[in-house]
């Protein structure tokens, strides 16, 4: 369960202070499917980054599974990111030297999972995103839709309860975009809390709960 109370996030840009999040209060229950929409620059990414523990709010309280996480140190944050949160980026962020399978394996390597279990879980993950035959391909040998499927498999490999996606279809054609959304929704049906930022009204409307942000405030 995600609970944000009076979250503010300011950015200092030269003389100017940008108020990217302005008193955000929101609670997301386990297993929910939430879309986040709003104009460009309204603070959607900032909100998701705070939830993902990639960014720290300037003020406010953030409880993850009833545990406050705003005061944790760097290593503790890394551990929670590793174990509790999957993140899918607009620009895929795959490591170019490594094969699809190795990219998917990476979070388990960082977590120190045993080799045998890693190989088995990577095979399952590749199957779940229908990329068994692309295991040894490097990112430059894959299409955009395939790259995002690899990224999703990587995000889910540690079996996190939360999956956050920042415009996951932003770089894809509508057909592959739809496939990606269906893949994410499939994960949500298996119990994963899913939160997707999108610009596409049709995609956003598919979510059971829709959050709209304007100027850093939930509208």
């Amino acid at each position, binding site marked *: 369960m995600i609970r944000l109370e009076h979250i503010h996030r300011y950015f200092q840009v030269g003389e100017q202070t940008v108020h990217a999040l302005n008193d955000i209060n929101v609670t997301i229950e386990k297993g929910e499917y939430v879309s986040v929409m709003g104009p460009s620059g309204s603070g959607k990414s900032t909100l998701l*980054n705070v939830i*993902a523990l*990639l*960014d720290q709010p300037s003020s406010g309280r953030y409880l993850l599974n009833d545990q406050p996480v705003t005061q944790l140190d*760097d*290593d503790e944050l*890394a*551990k929670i*990111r*590793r*174990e509790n949160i999957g*993140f899918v*980026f607009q620009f895929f*962020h795959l*490591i170019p*030297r*490594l094969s699809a399978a190795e990219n998917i394996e*990476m*979070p388990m*390597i*960082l*977590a*120190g999972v045993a080799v045998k279990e890693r190989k088995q879980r990577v095979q399952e993950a590749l199957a779940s995103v229908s990329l068994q035959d692309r295991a040894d391909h490097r990112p430059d040998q894959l299409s955009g839709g395939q790259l995002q499927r690899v990224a999703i498999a*990587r*995000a889910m490999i*540690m079996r996190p309860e939360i999956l956050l996606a920042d415009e996951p279809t932003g770089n894809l054609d509508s057909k592959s975009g739809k496939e990606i959304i269906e893949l994410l929704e499939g994960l949500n049906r298996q119990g994963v809390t899913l939160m997707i930022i999108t610009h596409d009204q049709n995609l956003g409307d598919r979510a059971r709960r829709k959050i709209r942000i304007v100027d850093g405030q939930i509208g």
Partner: protein
Amino acid sequence: MRYADLLSLSYRTVISHKLRSSLTALGLIIGIAAVVILTSIGRGIHTFVLAEFTQFGTNLISVHPGKTTTFGVSGASISTVRPLVIADVVSLSKVENIIAASPMVQGNARIEAGEKQRRTNVLGVGAAVPEIWKIKVVNGRFLPKEESNPRAFAVLGNKLATELFGTASPLGRRIRIGSDRFRVVGVMEKKGQMIGFDMDDTIYIPAAKALELFDRESLMEIHLLYKSNTAVERVEKAIKRSLIARHGREDFTLVTQNQMLKKLDSILNILTLAVAALGSISLLVGSVGILTIMTIAVSERISEIGLLRAVGAERRTIFQLFLCEALALSAAGGLCGVLLGITIVQILDAALPALPVELAWTYIVAAFMVSLLIGIAAGVAPAMKAARLEPLEALRAE
């Protein structure tokens, strides 16, 4: 993160830029190879020179006139120094544990044999010299044991014999040294250069005759051979006691072969060390290469660092990853450098037999360790920079 994974990831990254990695390692390879080659030559010279000296054997003591004292100017001045004489040699040869003793007078003189003449090195010695210096007579015999009033016999070095008599046997032939007449009784085996002077272009005559020839009162040195299984300190004590009894005071200096070897050894060690230090300068160049390439690697992979942090890598892990990469580069460079150096040393050894080379393993191991240290030293700063990046900012970097 497991260490095996850390190593394999670093290895993957290093070999994914083959050309770049090899060029980076090249600086180190050359540096390490230089250290290996230079120290091998240094060690080779070391061994060669020591072997030259130990040809004489190691259980030798020489007695020199005069006392070198460490207590400044003592009352004893040159005039009160009793000369070393042949009677001293006779008494020293009877000291406990002394196997043989020989006087030594050295000079240069003109030798005439029939039509031929030649200036050569003259050694005035005793009958025990072949035993003490481990040299052999190849033809005839050595000087007989006659302490007082020796006959005018001479023994020729190998080269001198051929120079003066060609292929004919010199045994029994009369020669003139300076103005004195001598009869040749023997020829020594070929010995080659020994510490600078040519043992084969030398003539041996009785010490008493040499004193007359060079118009000297006293011997230059006395050479003693002692039993190899006795402690040198004990022998020294006995020699001192005996000579002090004869001279009334300690007006002589003992030099043991061990002391000489030790001094020589330390000088030669410094030589090798200096040469190694010289080679290490090129290691410095190698380390700059690694520092440069790691700095570039970090700035190229900022977004990757962000990704790793986002999927749960701690700062420590990022630090280890980059440090390990630098280490992989330097270890590969060090290993190739060692192999290259050893190969070149072996080629040198085969191609130039005159050049003494010997692989100096301590330096080779040290050079490899230094290359690892260089990897660490050059890798720390970039790895720290990588570890300090904030995940979100790093992710944003293109």
